[in-house]
Every structure is written in structure tokens, then in C-alpha cells.
């Protein structure tokens, strides 16, 4: 049994400061103040509270405001019974600051890597039903902006069927929006904008772009990009509040360079098995690049990103399409001239389809 003198004590009931002696009996202790004796208290219940100037302050679990304030050098046999002071917090104190910094830095680097690469790993895990529902929620009937005529629908259906083995789980629509763009969205939705159809000189050109977007759907790039966007929003601690910017982002949902290459490969393969000449797509890309300076700039002014800003054009991309031509192969046009005219003029014919966006972007 040993006793220590002159320890300041608050009982947590009243603000009166007491000078007490600590009497240690095994794993317990008593507090003596003149004739009064309180306790026993278990050392196991003692918790480190804070450093107060030079003094270490201890509390007692379950006793609000109960304090033992030890200032000056604490005898080593008492010190051994009291909990260690807290400096940086649990883990850091246990590891030591140097090791903790290294461990945290490595963990952080791993976490950043997971956020950057997890979309590829997570996207296949998202069930189709979720993908479909998300697509319906985002696209719906596009505010009545989809164009339909019997002949135009038939032409589009033929084009899709020639480019994909399972056209029933794709939903390809033409939107009455004068914009040089095409997008793949969740739920197998692919939207061709009327502006793109108007710019195209042959159905082969549209086929290449369409097959590229179908490639994004089939390779599950859409969900990856969406996850990446959401993940980044979460990591950066907020979502951009600007509605125009968000819709714009959705339209320009950018894919990685890798994904673009995969979609191009998918497109070339689909064109090949449909016996459609890939040279049309190559020349279309070429013209898009020239247009980008004039018309594309105008489009950007109203806050809508053009196809090229989401699909950066490189010479190698165009070359790849040109090189995928197989000599001697029996290529045929993607659509007959009359089918092509019907598709191209579908939005002009469909009076019921609403045009433009009908809401303010900025």
C-alpha cells in the first residue's frame, strides 16, 4: 500500500476543488481528504482526459466530471497504474508518428487507386435491372423529343439489327435536337441527335458512329463512367450544383482513352460483320474535325458539348478505320437510298416530336 499526496480532485458533483491523497490498494485506490475517505475506485476505470497546461487530467468512467489532476512529476509506481497520456490519438500513439505517417500515406495511395480503378471492377457487378431502371429514370421519353415515322423506325431498326446480335435489349432513338452528338446512356439507351443525321452524307457514316456507341453499351463503359463520376463527386466532397453543367456532363460523359479504343474496335468489327464499308466513318470523323471550328463552336456557345469534345479525334483513330477495310470483301451500303432518306427526314416528318431542349441551360 502506498500513498501519494497533494493531488487536485473534483468529484464532478460540485465545483469545489479538493486536495486529496491517493491511497493505492492493489488494483484500486481511495481518495483521502482529512477525515473523509472516498472509494474504492478501480484503476481500470480511470481514463486519460486531457493535458491542462503542465498537468495531466484523469477522469473516471461513468462519473461525469470526476477529475484527478496530477501536476509535477508523478511517482513511477503510480504512473504505471494510470493510463498513458494521449497525444495524437489512438492509432498514431500506438504506432508512433513516423510509422503512422508512412502507414497512412500508403493507405491513402491505395484508396485513391481503388477510387480511380474501381469503376471497371464494380460496373460488371451492377445488376441489369438497376441499369435498366436508371436508364428509364434518366431518359424516359426524353420529354417527347424522340422522332418516329413507320418507315424511319423500320430503317433504324434494320441498321441496329445489322450492327448487333441482340438488338432487343438496345433502345436506339433519334432525338429532335439539332446537335452534332450521339450518346450511350444506362439501360442500353443510345440516342442519335438529329443534327448528326443531317450532317452525315451516307448511312455508312451513321452506322460507324452508332456501332461505336453500341460498343460503349456492350463493353459496359456507361456504368463505369457513371460510377467514376459519382465516385469523384463523393471523393471531392460535393456535387456541382449547376444544373446546366450537370446535364452537359451527362451528355459529354467522357470515357477513358482505353474505352474509346474498345468502342472503336467494337464498331469496326460490327461494320465488318455487317459488310458495311468503314471508310465512311473515317471520312465522317474527318469532316467533324473541320466542322468543329465553325459549327461546333456555335454549339458550344449554347452550352451543349459536341460529339468531338466527348470523343477526341486523333489521326490514328481515323487511320484504324481506314485500315480495317478488307480488300475484295463484298461491301454493301448500310441502308437503301429510300431507307436512308426516311431516316434522315424522320424528325422533319414527325410533327409531334418536340424540338430543342425546352429549358434553359444556363
Amino acid at each position, binding site marked *: 500500500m502506498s500513498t501519494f499526496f497533494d493531488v487536485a480532485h473534483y468529484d464532478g458533483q460540485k*465545483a469545489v476543488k479538493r486536495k486529496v491523497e491517493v491511497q493505492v490498494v492493489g488494483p484500486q485506490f481511495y481518495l483521502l481528504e482529512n477525515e473523509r475517505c472516498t472509494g474504492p475506485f478501480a484503476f481500470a476505470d480511470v481514463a486519460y482526459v486531457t493535458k491542462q497546461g503542465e498537468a495531466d487530467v484523469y477522469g473516471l468512467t461513468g462519473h461525469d466530471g470526476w477529475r484527478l489532476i496530477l501536476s509535477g512529476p508523478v511517482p513511477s509506481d503510480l504512473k504505471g497504474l494510470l493510463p498513458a497520456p494521449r497525444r495524437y490519438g489512438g492509432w498514431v500513439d500506438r504506432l508512433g508518428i513516423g510509422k503512422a505517417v508512412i502507414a497512412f500515406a500508403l493507405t491513402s495511395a491505395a484508396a485513391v487507386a481503388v477510387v480511380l480503378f474501381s469503376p471497371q471492377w464494380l460496373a460488371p457487378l451492377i445488376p441489369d435491372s438497376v441499369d435498366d431502371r436508371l436508364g428509364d429514370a*434518366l431518359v424516359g421519353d*426524353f420529354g417527347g423529343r424522340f422522332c418516329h415515322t413507320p418507315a424511319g423506325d423500320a430503317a433504324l431498326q434494320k441498321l441496329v439489327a445489322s450492327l448487333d446480335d441482340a438488338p432487343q435489349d438496345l433502345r436506339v432513338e433519334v432525338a429532335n435536337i439539332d446537335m452534332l452528338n450521339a450518346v450511350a446512356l444506362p439501360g442500353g439507351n443510345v440516342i442519335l441527335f438529329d443534327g448528326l443525321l443531317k450532317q452525315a452524307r451516307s448511312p455508312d457514316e451513321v452506322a460507324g458512329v452508332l456501332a461505336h456507341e453500341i460498343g460503349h453499351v456492350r463493353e459496359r463503359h456507361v456504368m463505369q463512367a457513371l460510377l467514376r463520376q459519382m465516385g469523384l463527386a463523393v471523393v471531392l466532397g460535393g456535387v456541382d450544383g449547376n444544373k446546366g453543367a450537370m446535364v452537359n456532363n451527362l451528355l459529354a460523359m467522357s470515357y477513358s482513352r482505353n474505352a474509346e479504343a474498345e468502342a472503336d474496335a467494337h464498331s469496326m468489327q460490327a461494320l465488318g460483320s455487317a459488310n458495311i464499308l468503314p471508310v465512311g466513318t473515317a471520312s465522317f470523323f474527318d469532316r467533324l474535325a473541320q466542322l468543329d471550328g465553325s459549327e461546333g463552336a456555335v454549339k458550344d456557345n449554347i452550352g451543349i458539348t459536341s460529339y468531338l469534345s466527348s470523343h477526341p479525334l486523333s489521326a490514328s483513330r481515323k487511320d484504324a478505320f481506314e485500315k480495317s477495310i478488307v480488300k475484295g470483301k463484298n461491301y454493301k451500303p448500310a441502308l437503301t437510298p429510300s431507307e436512308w432518306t426516311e431516316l434522315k427526314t424522320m424528325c422533319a416528318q414527325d410533327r409531334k416530336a418536340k424540338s430543342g431542349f425546352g429549358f434553359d441551360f444556363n
Partner: protein
Amino acid sequence: MNNEQLQTHSAFRFHGSWQEFARIAFPNLLLTIVTLGIYRFWATTREREYLWGKTDFIDERLEWTGRGMELFIGFIMVFLLIGLPFIVIQLVSQGLIFQGLPVLAGLLTFAMFLSLFYLTGLAYFRALRYRLSRTYWRGIRGGSDDPGFQYGLSYMWKTVLGWLPLFLMVPWAMISLWNDRWNAMSFGPHRFSANAQWTPLMKRYLLFYLVPFLIFVGAVIFGMSMAASGGTPDALGGTGMAVGGVLAIVAVLAFYIMLPLAALLFYSKYFRMAVGGLRLHTLEFEFRARAVDWVLFFLANMAIIICTLGIGYIFMPYRNWKFFVEHMEAYGEINIDELTQSQTVVEKHGEGLLDAFDVGAI
């Protein structure tokens, strides 16, 4: 010695030094960086432990008992219960705009804005409650039994009412909300009473309110008198242009200097009135910083941040606390025997959900 008569020196004294604080702040900065910001909750806690522990009230140190884990858990809960639903709502309203339903999207966004508005008010209340419940003096703490839900509503309608008459009632709203907040708080067995007046603030508020207008009128009058004395613009020629340029620069400078100055002038009065209306049982409080002190304080802060290329930012909590404590004053007497433990609830898991919205000091 149970009746603590306040001495001639201030009831509040601060013994900290910036060198000591630096030994806390720099490791905090390092740990915060390597943990991608997660350590900041523990960093805040360590800084407060130091600042509170170096602050005397009458004859005893203050004690900060909040824990980093509490803030962290609060943050996670806020993220799961508020942040995540908000991201989903953002996505949904984005989809609604996409589908041409901007009205519905607008309503959804408005509802989101309203709930954020409400939660901000709640957060102010909860932050104050959290700080009081974690602040001990002589083993006694503060707190409140009011969860603050009612205050959240008051915050909404009083803020809006303050804005409605061309923002002229803002001082009323600020003071009224301050009083509401503090009237719900207590320390030990005693309830705070706050009855600060708002009308004495109006003179300085109007000054702040009229500064842009006065500068504009001043510039116009000056310009006109120049034109009148200088004759025709032709005769003035180059000098006229130069004078005009100088005038514009002076007006812009006046705007950027006068406006913050007027704002500080108002804020210093606001804080003096607000603290001056505060009572705790037999104690009265005073905040003695005048406008000049605030101006010098801010200029020094700016100088420190600029001269250290931004690193000085980590000393701002120290400077703020020091400024606050050194200008606080209390009058009256405390009966230590009467000061018994607070019976207010302390949530077991540290604190409830919204204390993580740890917004500004009192």
C-alpha cells in the same frame, strides 16, 4: 474561499504560446495530408485541448473533453443520412430535366434547398450545444436539453424575415437568433439568459448598407464637378481620360476597402451587443474588442497568411481563440458550492448526428 470574488484582472486569461501551438499544428497538418483529410477531426480536437487547457477562467483552467472520434462518427452519419440522399436527389432531378420535366426538377431542388436551410440552423444550435457539453470547468460542464429542432424552424423564418425588407432586418434576425440559441443553453445548474438588443446595431448596419451607394454617389458628384470645372471633354483630352481612369481605380479601391471595413464595424458592435446581453446566474459578460481591435486583428491575420505563403493559415484557430479570450470579460460572483453538475443529456456516442456540422464559434 467559496465565494470567488472576481479580481481586477480579467476573469479570462490565456497562457498559450504560438511556438507550443506550432508543435501541435504542424504534425496535425502532416497527418491531415497523409490521411486525405480524415485526421482533421482529431486535429481539431488536439488544438482545442491545447487552447482550452491554456485558458484560465478566474482561478482554474478550462478543459476540452470532445474526442476526434465523435466528430468523425458525426461526419460519417451526416454523409450517409444527408450527403448520399442529396447526391441521389441531384441525379434524379438531373434525369427529370433530361426528360423535359424542369418544373418537377425545380420543386425537388427547392425542397432540397429548404431542408439544407433548416439543417444549417440546426447545425448552429447543435455546434454550440456540443461545445458547451464538452467544456468543463472545475469538473462541471454545460449543455442543453433542447435538441434544437424548434430552433431550426426559427432560423428559417427569422432569416427570411430579416431579408424581406431589402435585407434591412438582418441585425434583428442575427440578435434574435443569438438570444434564442443562448437562452436554451446552461452551465452546471444555471441557465444562460440572453437578451441582447438589436436596435443599437442599426446605425452601423445602415452605414454598411449604404457604403456601395455612397461610393457611387461620391464618384458621380466628383466626376461631374471635374467635368464642370474642366470645361468641354474635347479640351480635357488625354488628361480627362487619365483623371477618369484614376477615378475608377479609386472607386474600386474604396469599394474593396470601405465595404469590409464597414462590415467589421458592424460585426464588432454586433458581437459586443450579443455577448453583453448574456448572463449566467449572477455572472455578466462583456466583449471588449472595439472596431479598431477587429481591424488590426484581421490585418495581422492577412499579413501572417500572406507572408508565410498560406502556411500561417494553420495558426488561425490559435489567433481566433486568443483574440476571443483576451477580449472576454465576466463580472459578478460565483458561488462554487452552488455550482453543481449539469443534468443535461450527453448522447452516449459522443453527440448526435449534426454536431459534425461544426460551424463557427459561438
